């Protein structure tokens, strides 16, 4: 037992337990890596086409499922069907800061209650701080029903 005579060997031995902690640190990195939840690609019923008459935008709710790691949450989201644009479906979330826009039938425009952005009946931005028009959602018609996909926002301020 003459370890103390050999400084190199000594410091190497002291490093040995450290190796275990390094491997734990490596595992910790993998362990803690953020989980990007895949946007749910399920088609959600908005309304039967027969209910979508008239020229005014129609507000509807869709219930979308979100999976965050171990948790499934179901959330209601407001959407608008725009007859002016061939029943395109837009999210009611204002592309500015994420408040929900309201339809003002008298002025024939959407208004955001938070920072006074205004959008036309086709969803295009009219005025206010919003950077763009209301965000369209992927939609289709299946069995006489209008359906949308409501994905998770990939980055703040964007939809689907």
């Amino acid at each position: 037992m003459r370890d103390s005579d050999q400084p190199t060997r000594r410091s190497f031995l002291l490093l040995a337990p450290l190796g275990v902690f390094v491997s734990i640190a490596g595992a910790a990195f993998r362990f803690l890596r953020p989980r990007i939840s895949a946007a749910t690609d399920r088609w959600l019923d908005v309304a039967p086409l027969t209910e979508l008459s008239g020229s005014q935008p129609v507000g509807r709710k869709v219930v979308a499922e979100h999976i965050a790691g171990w948790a499934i949450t179901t959330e209601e989201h407001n959407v608008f069907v725009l007859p002016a644009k061939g029943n395109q479906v837009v999210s009611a979330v204002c592309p500015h800061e994420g408040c929900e826009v309201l339809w003002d039938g008298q002025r024939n425009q959407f208004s955001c209650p938070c920072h006074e952005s205004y959008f036309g009946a086709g969803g295009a931005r009219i005025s206010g701080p919003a950077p763009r028009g209301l965000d369209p959602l992927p939609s289709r018609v299946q069995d006489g029903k209008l359906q949308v996909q409501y994905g998770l926002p990939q980055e703040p301020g964007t939809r689907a």
Partner: protein
Amino acid sequence: MTSRKSSANKSNERLTSNQKIAGSSNGIQAWLETTSGIVAVLLTVQFLTGILLAFYYVPSVDHAYTTVEFVQKVVSSGAWIRSLHHYGSQWLAFFLFLHVVRLFWNEAYVDRNKLWIASLLLLGLVMAGGGTGYSLPWDARAFFSTRIAEGLVSGLPFVGRLGRLWLLGGNEISTLTLSRFFALHVLVIPGLIAGVIIWRRLTFGNVERNAIAAWLVALALALWSWKFNAPLGPSTTTVTADYLPRPGAQFVWLYQSLKYVPGGLGSIAGLVLPGVALIVLLSLRWLRRARLIGTVILGSGALLIVGMTTASYVSDYKNPNVRKQLAIQDAYSRLSPFAPSAVRSSQTDNTNTDAAAPVLYIKWCANCHGRNGEGGQQGQLRFPPLTGVSTKPRRTVDDIAGLLKDPQAYGLQPPMRSFADKLTEPEMREIAEWVHRLR
């Protein structure tokens, strides 16, 4: 005191120079001196993996099992991290016991009493950490572990009834119990362990030898945890009657002992005797015939632990039915796939109103917004539902009361009207409070 310094080895830990040790302790004796390093590394592993597990764990009976299962089956390296923590606690208890025996052998209680006391306290705290930790996954095993803890505490003389209530946080095992065990396990006990370590730092005799031993043990633990997943039983809601509860390795002696002790005396065997033994060992320094007393306590303790643990494993192994069932339980945690659990969302359950609508709401609001705030339609006019309105911006109780007075100020358009001339302030508040609770 000095006359009792018979063993040359006992002062090794104080020495920073290795020359003396190199001459005086060799062979098995020298390697037995390395328990300090092993304990230090295992404790560090417990702290690190515990912190990592806390990143996912949720201490609520609704989610605890799901989050542990998620860590075990989905998160990268999760099974390894959890297994390190699980088996690490058992190894830590084992090596701390060896450490205490070794210190006793070296008569540390005579000339290094602080170290002796600190090591005993650490052993007690590590056992307490294990005891509270087994409840946290909230699987079938956790349920039985919590039940046993409840039974042991409630059987204590004089303080049993009150102790049980304080332990459970109520008169039954509930989510409050889980929260208590969680707080003890991740805050109180680690805090006390850190305190003990700061109070009397673990010192290492021969640093190299300690490093080698600690590295070997840690490597073995890492490989063991790699090979064997920490067990995770069925959740408490899916457990079947044929489930066989078995405690973690460091409590098997207690589990087996309770088989031989008549019901009422379980607490004596499980809590009072170990407690008394701990107190006697802590005060060994001031006792006559310390050597004899310590030998009796530690010797009978070691005999009990080894004997009972062996008896338990042997009896499980001998019974084919038990062996089969235990194998099924062992496979369960690996075979069943992970299923995410539904978290109740605040906005979807429209029918959940916890109280009937106020009369004034029915009179002034229900015609348009529906009797339960579900919204409505009259010809061309659509009236928005009020359910979940509290999650929208600017819709606190104050806001709702305010918009009843002046809807335009809140961006609302006709036909929503002002009720300033119909309702008094308190009446508006009453309505607002009810609407705000709508889900």
